[in-house]
């Protein structure tokens, strides 16, 4: 560990804290339908989109109509991406003449991008045409992020509004999100990345003769425009297989910092927007603080273990940090930070091989995903996941003091708690049961990249990542029919089986009256609440996953200290 490494971490987090309020305020204006400084440009485009699509912008939706519209859009976008991947060889912008994808891989990829997961069982540089990359994958990075943010805005409205049936208009939220929020940042971000050296062209791959005379094929493509939305929308699907470790996607330490900021930016700003929309910004900062505590703890653990390095290699007489699967320009500090950031959020981009992390260094990304991706989280999904945890925390606190729990003046009753528990149970059920099945199935075990306890870690990581809609991988795991189908199903339920209960919870909360806080009200903007919230998240996560994780990374760590290899 170095001073520079800690300074890099501090600088990153200070930038995030500084941007949370201004962007959060702007987002609140966007989703409250107010005029912004970009309205002169985008308002006519917005009206034109509504006219072409048949959207009535003033229509308000109850939660179930909102959910239905969200599902309808997700279904159509899923069908489009599947269609493109199955027909890409006949479509334009395919200079490398890549063939169509097999049905199971196309299905897995279509679900992966629709659910904002971007789990990739393919190598982009040898599989996807430029048409597929931009009109299917990068387009989906915009709209699947927009869907997530729209749901979180609807959930916030449910919390903020009283005695009403409606929580907004899905089509308007989606459109305004993509247009006013994602697009302008992406335009600037693309230029920043190109300046750093990320390619942005439609050229065929270029074969050169290297200095020593060998042939080397240099890839190209519209990378920068896809790279920025990959991070900003916490999608994480790389243009190339090595993702942000590739010097094409992430050429410099500065581009690395920029990409990490993009990943956290919206998730952090949503907390401020939440405070603004419930008319008490301290509510938002309380959630921000809870997220920050888990984030900082995670980074410190990952950095400590990666910085210390691999004792089995030290025994061979080579000292230094764990550089296996890491890039020289980034080093362990920037790699441990990126790994923490990308798994706190549901991004899943990677600038290093998580599979080659030290056992306990790699435990950090794994646990981050198992906590349900609520530490800043996926754009939107992080915040609505966190609100579910807030409701649970308020309920537990109410039980402890023997009062009817209240959340912002609204009574939390049986129905709300049921929806919250339903959403929280999705993660353990969909991670542990499939992992147990996979660890005794021959076709599942056949594609593991590593033996011993690390093999179990690969299985746990795959289901934690797909369920949490993260998409990063212990990359040693190969794909086959079993994994394509199993992770596809997991991604589907990981997204919608959380989003729909969260919307139902919002609908239930929106119908309630709010009473003024009394002397015994448990406030949700105090330090003690932050502590309780972090405690709830960690206890739910630890109780659920500790036994499984103990058999994977923790056993591996102990055996490593005894000098065992597999």
């Amino acid at each position: 560990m170095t001073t520079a490494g800690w300074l890099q971490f501090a600088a990153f987090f200070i930038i995030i804290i500084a941007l949370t309020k201004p962007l959060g305020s702007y987002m609140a204006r966007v989703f409250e339908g107010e005029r912004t400084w970009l309205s002169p440009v985008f308002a006519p485009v917005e009206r034109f989109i509504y006219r072409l699509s048949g959207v009535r912008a003033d229509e308000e939706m109850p939660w179930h109509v909102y959910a239905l519209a969200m599902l309808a859009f997700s279904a159509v976008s899923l069908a489009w991406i599947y269609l493109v991947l199955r027909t890409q060889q006949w479509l334009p912008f395919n200079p490398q003449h890549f063939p169509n994808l097999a049905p199971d891989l196309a299905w897995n990829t279509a679900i992966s991008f629709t659910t904002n997961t971007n789990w990739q069982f393919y190598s982009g540089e040898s599989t996807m045409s430029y048409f597929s990359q931009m009109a299917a994958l990068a387009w989906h990075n915009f709209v699947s992020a927009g869907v997530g943010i729209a749901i979180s805005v609807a959930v916030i409205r449910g919390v903020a509004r009283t005695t009403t049936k409606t929580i907004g208009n899905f089509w308007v939220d989606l459109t305004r999100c993509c247009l006013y929020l994602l697009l302008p940042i992406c335009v600037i971000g693309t230029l920043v990345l190109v300046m750093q050296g990320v390619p942005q062209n439609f050229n065929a791959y270029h074969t050169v003769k290297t200095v020593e005379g060998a042939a080397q094929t240099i890839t190209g493509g519209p990378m920068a425009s896809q790279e920025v939305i990959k991070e900003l929308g916490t999608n994480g699907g790389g243009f190339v297989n090595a993702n942000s470790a590739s010097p094409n996607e992430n050429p410099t330490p500065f581009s690395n910092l920029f990409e990490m900021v993009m990943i956290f930016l919206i998730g952090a700003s949503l907390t401020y927007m939440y405070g603004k929309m419930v008319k008490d910004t301290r509510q938002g900062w309380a959630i921000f603080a809870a997220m920050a505590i888990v984030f900082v703890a995670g980074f410190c653990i990952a950095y400590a273990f990666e910085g210390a390095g691999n004792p089995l290699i030290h025994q061979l007489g080579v000292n230094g940090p764990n550089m296996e699967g890491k890039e020289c320009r980034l080093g362990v500090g920037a790699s441990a930070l990126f790994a923490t950031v990308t798994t706190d959020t549901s991004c899943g981009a990677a600038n290093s091989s998580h599979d080659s992390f030290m056992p306990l260094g790699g435990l950090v990304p794994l646990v981050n995903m198992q906590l349900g991706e609520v530490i800043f989280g996926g754009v939107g999904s992080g915040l609505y996941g966190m609100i579910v945890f807030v409701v649970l925390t308020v309920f537990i606190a109410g039980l402890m003091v023997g009062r009817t729990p209240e959340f912002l003046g609204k009574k939390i009753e049986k129905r709300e708690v049921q929806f919250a528990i339903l959403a929280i149970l999705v993660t353990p059920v969909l991670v542990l049961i499939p992992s147990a099945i996979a660890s005794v199935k021959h076709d599942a075990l056949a594609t593991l990249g590593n033996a011993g306890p690390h093999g179990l870690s690969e299985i746990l990581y795959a289901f934690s990542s797909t369920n949490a809609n993260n998409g990063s991988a212990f990359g040693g795991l190969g794909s086959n029919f079993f994994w394509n189908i199993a992770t596809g199903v997991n991604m589907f339920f990981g997204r919608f089986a959380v989003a729909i209960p969260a919307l139902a919870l919002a609908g239930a909360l929106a119908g309630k009256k709010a009473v003024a806080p009394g002397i015994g009200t448990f406030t949700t903007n105090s330090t003690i609440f932050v502590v309780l919230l972090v405690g709830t998240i960690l206890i739910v996560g630890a109780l659920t996953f500790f036994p499984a994780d103990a058999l994977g990374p923790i056993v591996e760590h102990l055996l490593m200290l005894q000098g065992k290899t597999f």
Partner: protein
Amino acid sequence: MLKHFGIALRLTVVSIAIFGFVYPFAMTGLSQAVFPYQAGGVFVKDAHGSIVGSEIIGQSWHEPYYFHGRPSAAGKNGYDPTSTGGTNLAPTSKKLIDATKSAIAALKKENPDATLSVPMDLVTSSASGIDPDISPAAAYYQVPRVAKARGISVRKLTTLVQGAVRERTWRFLGEPRVNVLALNLALDRVAPVSGVRAHLRR
């Protein structure tokens, strides 16, 4: 129900037009206009004016008179940009430990005159398989070999390497490093190996 599917269909088409086509094409045009060199792929030329690679993509090196990069898991022979990735081997993997052992042995054999300790990055594979850089320690480690093969003094070569070190951005971002391609091209300019270029590029 049907109404919402209709809207979904139409909004999908409209949004594909905007975010799937207008956005990437407009950004390509803008990038090519503002940063034509980077947008095209940062290709570098040697002293003879022929393109020998990309500044940000590592390549394979075998000759003793060139500095070598890190082990690579990209493609069959390494450093294949169409097959990027790492080994994805676990820290407790027997394969990893064996591979590291043989990398150390090969490195020591190639550098019999090396006086420094073996640098970690020269015996471990990068995440991308096309890492263009090595650590400054890894460059200094190879100085005696390269100096001998080129017939120049260790001191002169050390100075050249020192000049090639890229420090951390703003002193705290990333790590200090040496771009292997840039260093080797500089080396060819300062101390050419007679006949080598002609032989290789015949």
